[in-house]
């Protein structure tokens, strides 16, 4: 074994020159520096701009930045492990005819302390970084409940209520008369304040390119913020298994110019006026039990409902065919 000579511990031999041995530690260090630098540059400048979820909105750009930072921090660690692994396989492998046992393994306090210190500092730094990112605009795309930690200040936000229901999202625009539609239209350059809720089971509103992913819980107002900065198509999917047609619960939104949005909102408000007037008053969430209560009242009054008997009603006796 090439690294077996001498009385020092193998760990020390691996990094110190000894009896004509090359300076393995220096070699590994130099290889690591070059490869880690190359990996970080590639991640930041080449791969980074293509990392999900893109840069179509402030929230998504923030998430991409976070992923890039974490990748740049993690890559040198991974490169070091791989370089050491490759170096050991290449230089310290057992040669043909070498039947000698390798040296006994002993710890190396300096290496261990360095490794633990460096990785601990990195993990704690990332923890601090991640926490900071979550409580700023970067993390605002995730639903933070009815009282989000971060809110855009000094801006007028466009409020869009996202209503999950099996198996479709509908969108309500309270600042435009409260009309409800299946189309998600957003203006470029404006802060959007999503109020995500559900009328039945738990859904999850995932507007991928906007960097928004917020649970839609019945009776809960889950607020998320983002600002679209580019025109284009937005893929919206439900990200919470919600029943038979969960896989088909998706649609596509559009980020358009402010003028196009104003035109669309105005036209849609008029087009949907007949149904808007029968919608319940706008609220940040809706109690799904309202309908059961209506039906209970109907049953109590002896009014027959759909005979699925979801609500208390007269007992059903099936008739034989």
């Amino acid at each position, binding site marked *: 074994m090439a690294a077996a000579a001498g009385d020092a511990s193998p760990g020390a031999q691996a990094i110190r020159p000894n009896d004509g041995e090359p300076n393995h530690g220096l070699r590994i260090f130099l290889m690591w520096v070059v490869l880690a630098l190359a990996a970080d540059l590639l991640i930041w400048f080449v791969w980074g701009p293509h990392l999900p979820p893109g840069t179509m909105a402030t929230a998504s750009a923030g998430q991409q930045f976070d992923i890039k930072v974490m990748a740049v921090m993690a890559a040198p660690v991974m490169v070091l492990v791989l370089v050491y692994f490759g170096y050991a396989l290449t230089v310290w492998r057992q040669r043909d005819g070498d039947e000698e046992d390798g040296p006994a393994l002993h710890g190396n306090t300096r290496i261990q302390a360095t490794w633990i210190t460096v990785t601990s500092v990195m993990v704690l730094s990332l923890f601090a970084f991640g926490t900071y990112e979550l409580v700023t605009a970067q993390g605002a795309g995730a639903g933070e409940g009815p009282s989000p930690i971060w809110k855009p200040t000094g801006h007028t936000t466009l409020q869009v209520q996202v209503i999950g229901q099996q198996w479709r999202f509908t969108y309500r625009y309270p600042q435009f008369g409260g009309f409800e539609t299946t189309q998600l239209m957003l203006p470029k350059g404006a802060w959007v304040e999503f109020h995500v809720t559900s009328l039945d089971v738990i859904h999850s509103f995932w507007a991928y390119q906007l960097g928004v992913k917020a649970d839609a819980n*019945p009776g809960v107002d889950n607020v998320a913020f983002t600002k679209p900065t580019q025109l284009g198509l937005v893929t919206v999917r439900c990200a919470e298994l919600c*029943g038979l047609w969960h896989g088909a619960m998706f649609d596509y939104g559009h980020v358009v110019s402010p003028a196009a949005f104003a035109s669309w909102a105005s036209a849609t408000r008029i087009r949907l006026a007949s*149904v808007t007037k029968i919608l319940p008053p706008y609220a940040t969430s809706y109690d799904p039990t309202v309908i059961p209560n209506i*039906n209970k009242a109907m049953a109590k009054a002896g009014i027959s*409902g759909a005979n*699925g008997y*979801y609500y208390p009603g007269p007992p059903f006796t099936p008739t034989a065919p």
Partner: protein
Amino acid sequence: MSLPVRVATLAAAFVAVVAGASFLVIHYLLGGPPVEAFTASSGQVNITMQEDPQNTVTSKPDWVSYFIQSPTTHQWVHTTLFQVPAGTRVNMTILGYDGCTPLRNPYWSKVTGTYGNVALVNGKPVSVLNSWSGCNVGHTFSIPGIGLNVPMASPPLTANLCGTSPCTAGPHTVVKFSFTTPKVAGEYFWQCRVPCGGGFVTGFGGPMQTIGYMTGNMEVVS
């Protein structure tokens, strides 16, 4: 235990496992309601369906259900799967035998995706059917993939609903509408949006989540 007995036991266990797996595949994956295939006549397809307050033809008799009239035998078939040609006008007639239940979201009171965004309810054109204003909506017929939504009118409040399925008599409404099938072949699911799944969470379990009852597929073929 002798070797022949052990071999026989192993073979029997193997056969039992294979038979069980085959039964599961056949019964749950390959089984299911039949597909009613419609062909165009003069460039149009005519489909007739009915929605009933129950179905007395299955092991779940208290589940509300749709039925489709076979284009060949004209018999009512307990299925919600139908096949239509692509890019073709479909003239749909749905007989509403079930009573009323309010929509959870009154947005679905609006007729969309049909010719003129209207439906004929007992011969009268309707664009909005408000289920919160009275007892007037039993179910909906909605195909989200093509933006189609039609609330199904229900019989009068005091009507004595049909008790045997498929219904051939009794108070009912007649809802007619037309739409064009997509030019792209594929499967487009359809559903009811009224929470009429009896005894299930949010009223959307049971028949609402089971193909053959209140949801199904429109298979578009080129």
